[in-house]
């Protein structure tokens, strides 16, 4: 295995379409819930411990070889907002396309055949990590980091926030990110024996409600 493959997968320039999504930041900015560096950090902290934890555990579980269909259904049950389910599948489809080109293999081809409309992005992320020879913990880091880096870079664009403030917020979240990854991997290991119910289901009501409000706008900068 090459640990450097993690840098390729986690690179914001990996052509998987993530830059078009704000991770809920656009809705939170409009609602006045993100107004600067401090409130961005607060938003990202909440997202990390809810959607971030769930994504990281799904990704880790996919690396450990849990059934893809069961993981995808578990992601559906943990995502009540239909706008977020649609965004996750779209991102999953785009990521799968990039991953198949980067790390070709039968397993990714089979997922493409089984999920023509796309599987949930964190599940695909785990499968891509697996195809790249990475471990569960690597996929969990990638998913957890994406859960905060997406809103941070989107907020730089939405509020013309100083990029130093945004990266400072991400750096301050790093110790919590480590803990979220530990929890995610531990849960994924439990799920190998106990099934997908052992995966965390942490939720942020305002993330789901905000995503529905955002989906109803006529004009928006980000897709979600």
């Amino acid at each position, binding site marked *: 295995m090459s640990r450097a493959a993690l840098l390729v997968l986690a690179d914001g320039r990996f052509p998987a379409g993530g830059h078009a999504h704000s991770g809920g930041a656009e809705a939170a900015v409009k609602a006045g819930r993100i107004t600067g560096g401090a409130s961005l950090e607060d938003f990202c902290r909440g997202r990390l411990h809810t959607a971030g934890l769930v994504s990281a555990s799904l990704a880790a579980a996919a690396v450990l070889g849990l059934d893809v269909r069961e993981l995808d259904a578990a992601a559906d*049950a943990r995502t*009540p907002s239909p706008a977020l389910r649609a965004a996750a599948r779209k991102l999953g489809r785009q990521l799968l396309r990039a991953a198949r080109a980067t790390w070709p293999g039968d397993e990714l081809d089979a997922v493409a055949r089984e999920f023509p409309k796309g599987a949930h992005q964190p599940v695909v992320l785990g499968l891509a990590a697996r195809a790249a020879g990475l471990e569960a913990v690597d996929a969990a880091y990638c998913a957890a980091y994406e859960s905060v880096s997406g809103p941070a870079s989107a907020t730089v664009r939405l509020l013309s926030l100083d990029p130093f403030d945004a990266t400072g917020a991400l750096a301050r979240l790093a110790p919590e990110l480590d803990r979220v990854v530990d929890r995610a991997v531990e849960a994924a290991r439990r799920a190998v024996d106990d099934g997908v119910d052992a995966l965390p289901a942490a939720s942020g009501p*305002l993330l789901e409600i905000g995503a529905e409000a955002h989906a109803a706008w006529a004009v928006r900068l980000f897709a979600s």
Partner: protein
Amino acid sequence: MTVTGVRATARILARDDGRGGTSLPVLEGDGPLALRRTRASGAEARVMLVGAMSGPLGGDRFAVEAKVAEGARLSVGSAAATIALPGQTKGEAHYDIRLDVADGGELAWLPEQLISARGSDLYVTTRVELGARARLVLREEQVLGRAGEEPGRLTSRLTVRVEGRAVLDQELACGPGAPGGWDGSAVLGGRRAVGQLVVVRPEFAAEPVAARMLGEEAALMPLAGPAVLVSAVAADALRLRRLLDEALAALG
């Protein structure tokens, strides 16, 4: 001396009585969890959960199990809000609710609010298993602290399955000691009341309800299955209840 909390399990079984009504062959309260049958409405049997003591306190383990057999109709409410309080015993209290509705059965689970008082530590688990063509209305409301009070720690997981398949699995953790950001702009945004209304109807499979906003801080969302979720945050319990009542009325 070891101080242990109270353990109590209340059980309800609702069955089609074969005469157009619903009978309750099992209606067993236990200690602090008392059950009262109230006046039926048509085919539906009605039960009121009456808190005979305050609680749950730290270390307590409460459980309620309700089973609705094929074709039976049951509605369960509570006489008052449940208040989670700190107890003599250290450690979290548990409140486990297990609801099973067989094929063609119908359950309305509409308890009053759960209030998390300062210093309390409660883990609530609600698991609902629905058979084919079963119907459900379930309301869950949490209020963080009594008036002007800091909340305790409250974790609540709600899982709803239809024919074995999970359509909803959500956990909310809040209060002191909960993972960071619980009071922030991605989770509760400083609101002190949060609630969910889950409605499962077989006809939603063929005619899904469209997603819509209910004001600024509540949304009606079709789930991946014959179910919808109304998720809401509000400044207080009264406003939250109004939102959820309006949403239920709008679903018809």
